[in-house]
């Protein structure tokens, strides 16, 4: 059964939970920056998609849910995993392709899984995980276990057929799922205005009679509050909800992206809205933290990330004899 954790409205969050929101965003930022360094050192291979700039979306939304609500996301998935409480060392080990990684070195950056944390995975076919979210929600509905599903995807996903199929099915079966669109305005390197007839993505949910709202994805408290409201409605059995989080990724689509398609000034303007800086300022003005407390948090996340790297470095690579393990579940 679902855990009955008290989730107060955003305005009533106690100080320690406010600080925890800030700490988680800082952890993600530091983790991603370190991952980029490790990629440059060729400790990490393949595709590496970083979440810098979008931290408030994952942290705000996931903090508003119960720990056993299932979470699915796209391939830019480190932030969601960290926000859910997946062990940073095991995430970094996965990026390093180590046996101790959350996916045993099978998945890499794009395919983090930790089912014990109800983190049901990062998926790398754009929009391919929305149908799975419907199915998990169907199971919850049928098993009456009180759990709901949150499914993160980008603005690039909304022109896929599976997007429309999933929203329709979720609405017609009243499935307990929150569709969380992270609109960062670029599907890989293509500006949303060049490929989408309707750029206010939340409006598309109206075609499926689904409540939807645009929210400030740079504001962790707004993300928390609006997700909490959506979750209450979804958990009450009233059907799916849709949120569009307006956000911006500071870095390229992946490490291979030179960002020739957009000017640097745009990124700099968004940095003025930085979710960590602005939230820190709010907490400081409200007297929740001071400079000393912030420095302590910084030191803390620095230690966690350094420890994650050490763990990843020292972990063994997967055994070659294990190449064929897990293709099928063997009969027990």
């Amino acid at each position, binding site marked *: 059964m679902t855990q009955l954790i008290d989730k107060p409205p955003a305005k009533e969050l106690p100080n320690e939970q406010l600080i925890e929101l800030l700490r988680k965003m800082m952890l993600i930022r530091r983790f991603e920056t370190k991952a980029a360094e490790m990629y440059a050192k060729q400790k990490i291979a393949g595709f590496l998609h970083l979440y810098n700039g979008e931290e408030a979306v994952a942290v705000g939304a996931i903090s508003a849910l119960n720990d056993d609500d299932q979470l699915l996301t796209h391939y830019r998935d480190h932030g969601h995993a960290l926000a859910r409480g997946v062990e940073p060392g095991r995430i970094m080990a996965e990026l390093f392709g180590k046996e101790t990684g959350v996916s045993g070195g099978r*998945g890499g950056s794009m395919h983090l899984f930790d*089912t014990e944390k109800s983190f049901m995975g990062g998926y790398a076919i754009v929009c391919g995980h929305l*149908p*799975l979210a*419907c*199915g*998990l929600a169907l199971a919850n509905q049928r*098993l009456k276990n009180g759990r709901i599903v949150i499914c993160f995807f980008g603005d690039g996903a909304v022109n896929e057929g599976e997007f429309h*199929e999933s929203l329709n*099915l979720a609405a017609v079966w009243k499935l307990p799922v929150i569709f969380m669109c992270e609109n960062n305005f670029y599907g890989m390197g293509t500006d949303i205005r060049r490929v989408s007839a309707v750029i206010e993505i939340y409006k598309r949910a109206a075609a499926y009679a689904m409540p939807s709202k645009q929210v400030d994805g740079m504001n962790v408290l707004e993300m928390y509050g609006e997700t909490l409201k959506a979750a209450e409605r979804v958990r009450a059995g009233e059907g799916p909800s849709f949120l569009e989080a307006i956000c911006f990724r500071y870095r390229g689509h992946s490490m291979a992206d030179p960002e020739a398609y957009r000017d640097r000034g745009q990124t700099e303007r968004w940095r003025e809205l930085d979710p960590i800086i602005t939230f820190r300022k709010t907490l400081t003005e409200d007297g929740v933290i001071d400079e000393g407390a912030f420095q302590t948090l910084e030191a803390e996340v620095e230690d966690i990330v350094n420890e994650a790297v050490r763990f990843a470095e020292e972990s063994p690579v997967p055994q070659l004899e294990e190449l064929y393990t897990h293709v099928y579940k063997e009969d027990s």
Partner: protein
Amino acid sequence: MAEMSFRGALRLTLQEELQADENVILMGEDIGAYGGSYSVTKGLFDEFGPERVMDTPISESVVVGAGIGAAMGGLRPIVELMTINFSLLALDQIVNNAAKLSYMSAGQIHVPMVIRMASGAGSQLSSQHSQSLEGWYAHIPGIKVVVPYTPRDARGLLKTAFNEQNPVIFIEHTALYARKGEVPDEDYAIPFGQAEVMREGADVTLIGYSGSVYQTLGAADILEEAGREADVINLRTLRPLDVDTIVASVRKTHRAVVIEDDWKFGGFAGEIAAIIMEEAFDDLDGPVARVCGADVPMPYAKALEQSALPNPQQIADAALALF
């Protein structure tokens, strides 16, 4: 033993599983109130209701994907895709998700689901409704591919599919639905990877699966009249494949013909031929022959359609050419 149609054997098995386990659900287009495009699920909607026998939108991708998600979430979904032709709309879910989740998650996630679909030609449905793409699915590690021929196969293999922890593609040739056969009264299951030798003979091995076994048995009759005795192998599953039965037969007969409705170029018959070459090259008295569907989109006109499908005489001729 009771005589039962292929369709009836499937329906009985689905009914029993729905009765046995509350977490079994059927999902598909027109499987409920309509009774199923091929009447396999007829009556189940009335017996189990719309929450167990779920009519879906015509949205193959989300139907399969929701089946995968439901399996991840603890249900036992059986998805019906009406036909293999429509399954192409769900290929992303089958290939990129169902087949890979166990591996990518290092065994944290399993997808115990069955995806049923009709296949094959012969009813003058033209190019978009007459394909036999079983071999495509057999190409993918992470899924299992089941191709029953007899009503006994249908029931026994579906039982096994229900007990699987892995995604199963269960393919039903449309020409078989009304065909009748003996089905054991007792509870039984046919393990995957066990071909059936339908008929024994020392001179040549004929290997078929699904609907093509019918033509293959016809060819064996023709061969008998010509004084040649054939081993006829019904593969029953393509993945896993019963290599042992194939190889043992070829070691005995020294000649092999592989039969399938699908196109020859790049098809599953070529895979079987290659396996025979790898495993029993020195036992062969000649090249492995293939009798497959013509290399064309399926035509509508009856005579054209029939000429595009393997027939008993073609198969027998291919076998006799090996002597």
